[in-house]
């Protein structure tokens, strides 16, 4: 009986210790993974295509993983999280000067191009840089292919690209120098920024969305 009581006592102690350490670990994990905390950011890419059988691609990458893995990739122009852009006629463009000018300027539209084939709009509003491109040609081609005519039909099929980037991310992207894009610094800036919709591409057949939030699944 004494032996049994001792065994019971030891079991109780072990159970209590295990229980308290497990609940402590669970609590710590819960605190670490609070939704909305910036270390729990995810990059989501969703591509939906109606062409052929219909295709869907959903990619969800933890921001922290992207930041850790990117410097380990050494492929072609990508090294240490930076992409070399030499030979892309960047010699004559002082990106830093342009960025400085944009940063210090007031909100507004900087570039507006309207033509028969494309509309391009570059604007700054608050802490975001907006780039909107509408490809009118694709709408006309698509409407003609389906034998439909008229401005409304073509407009409905136009390809639209909308990019919304926080200015801090743009700064970080061009922080490496003239011939390089610092993707790693941009990711870090993006991670510090919080939830944001980055890229949306829409035409009558395809939809592409790239966004950052704290959910580990795409909605």
């Amino acid at each position: 009986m004494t032996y049994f009581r001792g065994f019971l006592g030891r079991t109780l102690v072990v159970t209590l210790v295990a229980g308290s350490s497990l609940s402590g670990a669970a609590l710590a994990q819960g605190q670490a993974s609070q939704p909305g905390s910036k270390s729990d950011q995810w990059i989501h890419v969703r591509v939906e295509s109606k062409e052929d059988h219909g295709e869907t691609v959903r990619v969800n990458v933890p921001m922290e993983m992207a930041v850790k893995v990117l410097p380990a990739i050494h492929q072609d122009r990508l090294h240490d999280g930076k992409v070399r852009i030499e030979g892309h006629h960047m010699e004559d463009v002082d990106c830093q000067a342009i960025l400085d000018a944009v940063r210090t300027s007031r909100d507004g539209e900087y570039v507006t191009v309207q033509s028969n084939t494309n509309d391009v709009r570059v604007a700054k509003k608050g802490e975001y840089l907006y780039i909107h491109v509408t490809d009118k040609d694709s709408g006309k081609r698509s409407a003609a292919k389906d034998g439909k005519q008229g401005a409304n039909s073509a407009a409905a099929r136009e390809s639209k690209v909308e990019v919304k980037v926080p200015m801090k991310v743009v700064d970080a992207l061009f922080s490496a120098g003239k011939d390089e894009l610092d993707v790693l610094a941009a990711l870090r800036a993006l991670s510090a920024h919080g939830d944001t919709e980055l890229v949306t591409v829409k035409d009558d057949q395809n939809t592409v969305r790239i966004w950052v939030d704290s959910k580990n699944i795409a909605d």
Partner: protein
Amino acid sequence: MLMLAKAALGLSAMAAAASAYVFHEGVIRVDVEERRDAGSQVHFWVPATVVSTGMHFMPKERIRHTADKVRPYLPVLREVSKELQKYPEAELLDVTSGSDRVRIAMRGGKLWIDAVSEDGDVVHVSVPAEVLRDVADQLESQAPGV
């Protein structure tokens, strides 16, 4: 009689401890089903410990050769495997094209790769993230300079 009972108890405890050790890293599971005449059907479960422990007993020359071949990818494998352990439940990739589907996800601390083709061929692979890290670490230790 008492001696026999004690011996049986000892053996059972040893068997339980051995099983616990063998399966403590989880199980690697591979299922391949080809839905055509004479298509192959492969199903196997391997304790993950067999892989990580088995690598210690592989000929050093063979491991060094493999490490040399995969050297450019080892830093990525190391970082990915290390990071994956932090996300035990996560959908990473889901590609659907008609009836073809490929999914890569973390479930219960394991990396799951599921592929289903239009013809009905099925491939399911699940590997504990810890094993990927062990393999990356061991290959890296044989590929100095990575």
